[in-house]
């Protein structure tokens, strides 16, 4: 076949620019909206997903991780006594106040851990070491929140919940879904910062022995430990994500924006591809008059749409990577996991081919007078 599709596409540079701009705009819009949605969703369950625990033990009816209710830490021994439990540690995640040097207060969420254990340790530590948390009053926070909390460097001293806190390190990319940054510290410090009694904890995190059935261990814990809920990390993560994304208005707004991004993106692509096809409608009419079957014309139009999709996707992803990269230093992370990037290719192809189908419908109904008109 003579290269009609390619030539039609590349012949008119202005039209090509308009078409590709439309597709690139759509790709970036969808990536940003979906990426924000994924970023928010991921942030809601960050603590749980990175905890390394198989099971979370909470007070009864705790709906999400930020809403932990204190219970006696003596339950830890009961938990450890259950067959299949290889490790169990107390963890605190609780809102409290951070006092800046300028006297301003910021809400933070202290995360108290057993520094000697592998559960719920801060990850992506870029300055300092997790072991530094063993020293009195030590805290580690994410570099994203330096400005918010008025922190400039390691070694600075602040006040959390009325207690002295010394910054010993920074992490990278540990976001909180709420406006309250996570502040990692030892379990003992966290009790002070959060105003808990010495015998209280908010969560017990459990690792089950290799080969042990998580559901069976969960059942045994429920049977042996009174007045608690035992949830798998996946369950608790889903509950927390569901709470933030769907019970509060924020998540729903992001979700609606993501869906709108898809719709607007599709409409923009449909409009530009349709206009491109309409630009050549007379030629398709001529092809029909020459005896080309509809399939032949569809092939030309689809090829044109597919080429546009591939070029638009490549350019769109190029822009998107910059946007995603830039967002990592901002307040809202836009995430683009590999499956999403691959999925975007097929979505772009689908949008362009789908949009071309709309114009194909028009081509099948070409008025013959158009072909004969001078």
């Amino acid at each position, binding site marked *: 076949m003579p290269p009609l599709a390619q030539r039609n596409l590349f*012949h008119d540079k202005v039209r090509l620019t308009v078409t590709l701009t439309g597709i690139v705009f759509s790709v970036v819009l969808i990536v940003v909206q979906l990426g924000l949605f994924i970023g928010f969703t991921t942030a809601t369950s960050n603590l749980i997903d990175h905890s390394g625990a198989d099971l979370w033990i909470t007070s009864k009816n705790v709906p999400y991780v930020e809403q932990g209710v204190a219970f006696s830490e003596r339950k830890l021994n009961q938990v450890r006594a259950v067959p299949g439990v290889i490790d169990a540690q107390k963890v605190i995640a609780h809102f409290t106040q951070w006092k800046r040097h300028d006297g301003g207060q910021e809400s933070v969420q202290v995360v108290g851990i057993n520094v000697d254990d592998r559960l719920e340790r801060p990850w992506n530590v870029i300055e300092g070491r997790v072991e530094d948390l063993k020293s009195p009053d030590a805290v580690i926070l994410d570099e994203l929140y330096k400005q918010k909390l008025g922190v400039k460097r390691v070694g600075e001293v602040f006040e959390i919940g009325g207690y002295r806190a010394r910054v010993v390190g920074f992490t990278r990319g540990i976001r909180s879904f709420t406006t309250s940054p996570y502040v990692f510290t030892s379990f003992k410090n966290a009790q002070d910062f959060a105003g808990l009694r010495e015998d209280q904890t908010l969560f017990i995190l459990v690792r089950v022995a290799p080969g042990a059935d998580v559901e069976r261990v969960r059942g045994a814990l429920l049977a042996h430990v009174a007045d608690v809920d035992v949830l798998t990390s996946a369950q608790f993560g889903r509950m927390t994500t569901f709470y933030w994304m769907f019970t509060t208005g924020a998540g729903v707004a992001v979700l609606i924006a993501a869906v709108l991004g898809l719709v607007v993106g599709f409409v923009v692509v449909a409009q530009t591809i349709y206009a491109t096809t309409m630009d050549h409608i007379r030629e398709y009419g001529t092809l*029909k008059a020459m005896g080309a079957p*509809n399939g032949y014309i569809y092939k030309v139009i689809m090829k044109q749409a597919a080429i546009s999709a591939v070029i638009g996707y490549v350019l769109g992803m190029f822009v998107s990577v910059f946007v995603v990269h830039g967002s990592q230093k901002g307040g809202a992370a836009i995430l683009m996991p590999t499956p999403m990037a691959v999925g975007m290719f097929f979505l772009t192809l689908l949008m362009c081919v789908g949009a071309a189908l709309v114009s194909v419908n028009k081509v099948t109904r070409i008025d*013959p007078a158009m072909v004969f008109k001078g």
Partner: protein
Amino acid sequence: MSSAISVRQLTKTYEEGPAGTLALRGIDLDVSAGELLMLMGPSGSGKTTLLSIMGCILTATSGSVQVAGKEIVGLREKDLPAIRLEHIGFVFQGFNLFPTLTAGENVELMLDLKGISGAKAKKRALELLEQVGLGGKYGSFPADMSGGQKQRVAIARALAGEPAIILADEPTAALDSHTGRTVMEMMSELAHTRGRAVVIVTHDSRVVSFADRIVRIEDGMIATSVASETVPAGLLAKTQPQAAMSLV
């Protein structure tokens, strides 16, 4: 001569408005192989509609139309492209070349539809362009060609399908008289030397002398159908057709 196109009691109604518009009313017409027939008449008289139906682009409302012996009235729309491809070549007033393809590629497009591609198609396209006097224009784009050259490319493209019937809509309307005459000489050659049935819709009285027969349509009906030697003198051009180049 055998009938390439045979039309009987053809009617066409456009379903627009409550009553519809009757565009053709009981047309009877035969076009023979080797004949050059011109359809004339005022605008809106139904010439292009008749040409479209004979070209299997429009469907008739009633009557019978046989193209190369095959009845096309009542055929499904999806069956018509194959008949167009097999039997009919079109030449348009506006040339209808593909502006993004070279002259050669325009011809190759028709060959591709006929299942000929690659080096064989290129060779054939070069031959056809040679035959219409455009041997050196294979790589030229339509935008770089004169109106006469474009129309000759269009003729080469129509011929690429080896059609028995050539349907032309105002092929000289966009051309000056000299170029128009050259194009008409080719059309005449196609009919008289190569045995094609050529039907031309035209308003151009300068070219009527090339016709074997002139059919005048008014209000969707045939008003007159006369052989060229009996055409009133005022309608005839000064000269008789002379083939300027061989298309064989």
